């Protein structure tokens, strides 16, 4: 990603007033901001450009926001997505996050909260990118597994090629940075999600289960992703004896 794209935000919103307001505020905060009026436009733009964040309205004419997000993820584009929606019930939130969204804001929203969330997502990804910038940090080897943080791909001990979701990769990154230390669930939530998007730390547990299933030879008796009861997790590169 070019340095310019690192502060570029794409705003996909079909209401011209709301779009104008969001764009102006993002520019005032020092972001470069581009607007798209519908899903097709957004996907076309994204095929040619990179950006640090997509602010995506859920109810769009034509392909809706969830569809745009799903299409992006299928393309292998891991650009973070902040959903804006008129419906804010929990089921909708879950749907947005399942489609591959990073965060969710219900309309009408507070400007300050919106800007805070944008900053949090951009900062999180800045950290992830800079933490995977060098040849040494871009690849993690443990057990017989190999993880490529930049490509969101992994080759596991049994030779299987795996695609990692952004969240899985981020959790892995946090754990790897603190290999051998105890990382609490709250820390993981804060570093990877940054906000109260998910209602509980149970989500973290589910992601750890998924990582174990991918990388442990015997997921029931993990040697790399260890549970520290009542606190969190400890990651061991070499594997527990």
């Amino acid at each position: 990603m070019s340095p310019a794209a690192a502060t570029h935000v794409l705003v996909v919103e079909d209401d011209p007033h709301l779009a104008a307001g969001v764009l102006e505020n993002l520019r005032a905060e020092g972001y470069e901001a581009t607007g798209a009026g519908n899903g097709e436009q957004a996907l076309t733009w994204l095929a040619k450009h990179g950006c640090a964040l997509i602010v995506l309205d859920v109810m769009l004419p034509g392909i809706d926001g969830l569809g745009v997000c799903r299409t992006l993820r299928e393309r292998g584009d891991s650009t973070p997505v902040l959903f804006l929606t008129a419906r804010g019930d929990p089921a909708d939130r879950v749907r947005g996050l399942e489609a591959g969204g990073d965060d969710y804001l219900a309309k009408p929203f507070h400007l300050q909260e919106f800007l805070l969330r944008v900053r949090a997502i951009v900062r999180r990804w800045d950290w992830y990118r800079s933490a995977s910038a060098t040849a040494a940090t871009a690849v993690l080897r443990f057990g017989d597994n190999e993880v490529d943080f930049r490509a969101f791909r992994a080759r596991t001990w049994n030779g299987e090629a795996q695609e990692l979701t952004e969240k899985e990769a981020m959790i892995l990154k946090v754990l790897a940075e603190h290999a051998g230390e105890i990382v609490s669930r709250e820390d993981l939530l804060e570093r990877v999600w940054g906000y109260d998007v998910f209602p509980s730390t149970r989500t973290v547990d589910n992601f750890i289960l998924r990582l174990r299933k991918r990388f442990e030879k015997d997921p029931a008796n993990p040697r790399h992703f260890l549970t520290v009861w009542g606190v969190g997790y400890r990651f061991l590169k070499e594997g527990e004896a």
Partner: protein
Amino acid sequence: MKATRVFQLTALALVLVSAVQVGWWLLDQHAYTVEKVQAARASYAEQAAAAQALLDAGVSVARVEQLLPSIVVNDGRAMLAPQLAQALTSEERRRDNQYAWEGSFFLLALAACIAVIARALRAEARVHEEQESFLALVSHQFKTPLASLQLSLETLALRAPPPDAARPLIERMLADLARMELMVTQILESARLERGRVELKAEALQLAAAVARVILQLEERARSGQVAISSEIAADLNVVSDPLALDVVVRNVLENALAAVPRGGNIALTAQRANGAVQLAVRDSGVGFGPADGARIFEKFTRLPGGGNRYGTGLGLFIVRRLMELSQGSVTAHSDGPGKGATITLTWPAAAASTVAAPAAVEATVPGVEAPGAAGMAGNVTQPRASLGESRR
């Protein structure tokens, strides 16, 4: 609402149980009759056998017939009296017949009850569902202008921009407010139309004059959007309609066309007579729509992909359809496809030329002046939209 439902479900359960009971009762009665007739036949057979034994033992025929009155002797053979055998058969038939008629009457009555209750329940469920989706749609429609309003206000509060920079924000907020006001009006109006609580007059009106009046009001907007509106309507075409309904319908259709047409586009109005009716075709060079959307655009809150009217409430064309239905007319939409423009055709019953109000009276109702006897409908429905159009520039 809830108590009614409980009552209906209880009634349905009772009726169902009754139907089952009637069915069971019928089977039981039939079985009982069969059993009784068989028992009688068996007893007669025994009597006949006894009579035969007596005859065989040398008892005289007269004595046997006296001892066993149900038995007759024929050629030395004892048998059941034919009238008794016949009575038995006809009694059996009579009872079965009775059960069949009475039973089917009861079952029919019960089935009718079940159908009525089930229908009521289904209708209620549908109304409930419609209300739910209506509420969901309304709240969604309101949340976007609300979000925009809040964003603009918070921007003003956060950044305290100089007056020059604040101006567009304020204009945006005014437009958002106008849009919400229009939505409230249109929602109430469409609810009223839906319940059929509108009394429309049936007057003979000159179509050309009514259309010209609406065009005059939208001229400024068309000019600023560089859209050419042309109208070719013969002066002798007259329709039967409520004057306000005609005004609202033509205006909504034209505003819709204006929103769909890009800069430099055009809108053409033509009219013709067709089988006792008058048709007004409004053809635009706008965004058009797909083949499947021709009927959908007249439904509530329909927004089509790529549709131009981002400020629309999704109620304009719904109101048009209802008003046309109430005016004994109809409305259809046609497009050759997305990007290929659209034609909305309005059809009214034709009026005889002699019954039409003098053109002078029509001229008197120029833009800005409420039509005589205006019930407020046209004014309320359209004014906010007109001001919205101005602020859009």
